[in-house]
């Protein structure tokens, strides 16, 4: 005869799962946003390893904008603008000057580090400043349904925008002529050129879109997740976004889901820290990074199995 759990325990489980899932979405969103645009960019044939730098610049721009104007949404706008500018530089370098994509990307990472920290120290970082954040959505009764309420209906507005973007991007790539042309550019740019597809234009559009979402991802970090700007706060999430795109085989929705996977790893790691305070926290902090490596290895190994 089985025993049912006492009501208090079941409540704790429910709270635990709710908190974990809500945290998963919250913590994965920055990566997810950046991954959407990077998926589009890579689909058109261009990598941008520099989105780490763009996210950092976006995080700073959003924080700075929010502090200066008092409106976090304006901060988000600034992040989008800076994302566009930096992505534009990448597009110029790679498409017009034919510079190696990775060299330009690394340059962008370094620039993002320098720009965000330098200007931060001169402005909002000089002394402790609180950043007006974006309040999470409150849909009244829906947001309070047990478990799914807080998880699905009480996230930041940016999260819903992200989800919509992911689905819309996937749809555009697969169902429209524009998306078909993009796919052609990514599969075989030479042939696409011969078919009179404006390859550079399409690639530029995708790179710029990648810049917008990377900027948004950075903005999410400073204006939603942390409500502050901390130097180097992106901490590798931009690279995780690139890993998500690899894992998701350049499909925006799958890459987005992979990002949520990293969100889960991060959320788990944080919970474990509180549950096992004796375990050195450093071993838990590395979980998402180890997960990324493992995912890349397993992902490719599975693909290679067919050829064995």
């Amino acid at each position, binding site marked *: 005869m089985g025993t049912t759990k006492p009501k208090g325990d079941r409540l704790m489980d429910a709270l635990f799962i709710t908190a974990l899932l809500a945290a998963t979405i919250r913590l994965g969103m920055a990566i997810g946003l950046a991954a959407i645009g990077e998926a589009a960019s890579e689909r058109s044939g261009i990598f941008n*390893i520099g989105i780490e730098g763009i996210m950092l610049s976006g995080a700073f721009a959003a924080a700075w904008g929010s502090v200066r104007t008092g409106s976090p949404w304006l901060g988000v706008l600034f992040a989008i603008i800076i994302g566009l500018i930096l992505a534009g*530089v990448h597009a110029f*370098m790679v498409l017009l*000057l*034919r*510079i*190696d994509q*990775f*060299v*330009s990307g*690394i*340059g*962008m*990472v*370094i*620039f993002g*580090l*320098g*720009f*965000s*920290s*330098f*200007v931060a*120290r*001169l402005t909002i970082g000089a002394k402790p400043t609180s950043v007006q954040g974006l309040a999470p959505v409150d849909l009244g009764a829906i947001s309070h349904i047990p478990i799914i309420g807080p998880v699905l209906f009480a996230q930041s507005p940016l999260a819903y925008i992200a989800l919509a973007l992911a689905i819309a991007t996937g749809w555009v790539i697969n169902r429209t002529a524009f998306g078909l042309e993009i796919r052609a550019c990514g599969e075989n740019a030479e042939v696409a050129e011969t078919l009179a597809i404006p390859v550079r234009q399409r690639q530029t559009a995708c790179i710029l879109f990648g810049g917008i979402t990377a900027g948004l991802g950075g903005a999410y970090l400073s204006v939603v997740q942390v409500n502050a700007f901390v*130097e180097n706060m992106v*901490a*590798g999430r931009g*690279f995780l976004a*690139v*890993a998500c795109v*690899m894992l998701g085989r350049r499909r925006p929705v799958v890459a987005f889901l992979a990002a949520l996977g990293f969100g889960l790893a991060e959320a788990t790691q944080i919970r474990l820290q509180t549950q096992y305070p004796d375990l*050195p926290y*450093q*071993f838990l*902090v*590395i979980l998402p*990074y*180890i997960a*990324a*490596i493992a995912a*890349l*290895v397993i992902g*490719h*190994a599975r*693909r*290679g199995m067919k050829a064995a």
Partner: protein
Amino acid sequence: MSAAMTRVVRVGVILIVAALVPGLFVLLAGQNPWRVLATLLLYAFGPQGWSEVLVHAIPLTLIGLGVAFALRAGLFNIGADGQLIAGAVLAVFFAPYFAGWGIAGLIVFLILGSIGGAALGALVGYLRAWFGASEIIVTIMLNYVMIQMISYLIRGPMQETSRFWPQSFLIPDDCILPIIVQGTRLHAGLFVALVMVIAAAIVQRRTVLGFETSVLGANPGAAAYAGFRVKILTVIVMAISGGLAGLAGAVEVGGIYQRLQDNMSEGFGLAAIAVALIARLEAAAIPFAACLFGIFFAGSGALQRELALPFPLVWIIEASVIFAVAALQWALPSRKAIA
């Protein structure tokens, strides 16, 4: 416009833009860019600064050699920071065992550093060769992992005896690289770096390994055709690349810090990429590029002290240099054969 004229104009525009970008940020900070340039140069070539430039150039040279070697094979090693830490940790961990060994102890210390970095590099190479896992992502992930690992070690098992500061115990005296110019921080790691430059140049130009590496980077199909064992070559190249970074770790500990602590790498990993690119992946040119960045790194301290310019200006300058060098390669394409 004639072709030569076009080229001159392009080069001019590139150089101007490359100078403008950091210049704009300097202006933003309320300073005069010419004063910044003057301060940098005066410091770098002045009595206090020249040794600091070299002090920074030492790890940049070592790591730059490693990054360049991997890049020649088409492999992007962004993980030098992590490999540096791995080398430093391994060397310091075993250092107490060879206290009193004299110069042999120092040599073992340096070798252990190389092994630590090489092991991490080899792991990355293995994952790339056998599983196709992007070495760019894996090396970056391992950077973060190693930063956490050293954080744990210096607060835990390897912490100094009073158990108060987040740093490791001191290394034995034998493992310390002696200062070679009194009154400065310039240590014998300089010789280590120079030896490695010569070794790398020889390997690159005269050995079969160097040749195979170049072929792998230039045309992987040709590497297969020639019968190179590409997977093993990948592991070896990443091991050597990591080993040089690990050696830099041991050198930094032996010459500067004499113990493990947080933030030993100061972002050398990324800077070394810029160094390697400026040097066009040629071992002989790396020390010069490293000195250039040494000027930026060392000089940034002076800029901060005298002109209140935040240190991250160095990154902005670095990024400008990377883009400028790449753009210059576009403006001045080389039609010479790689011989």
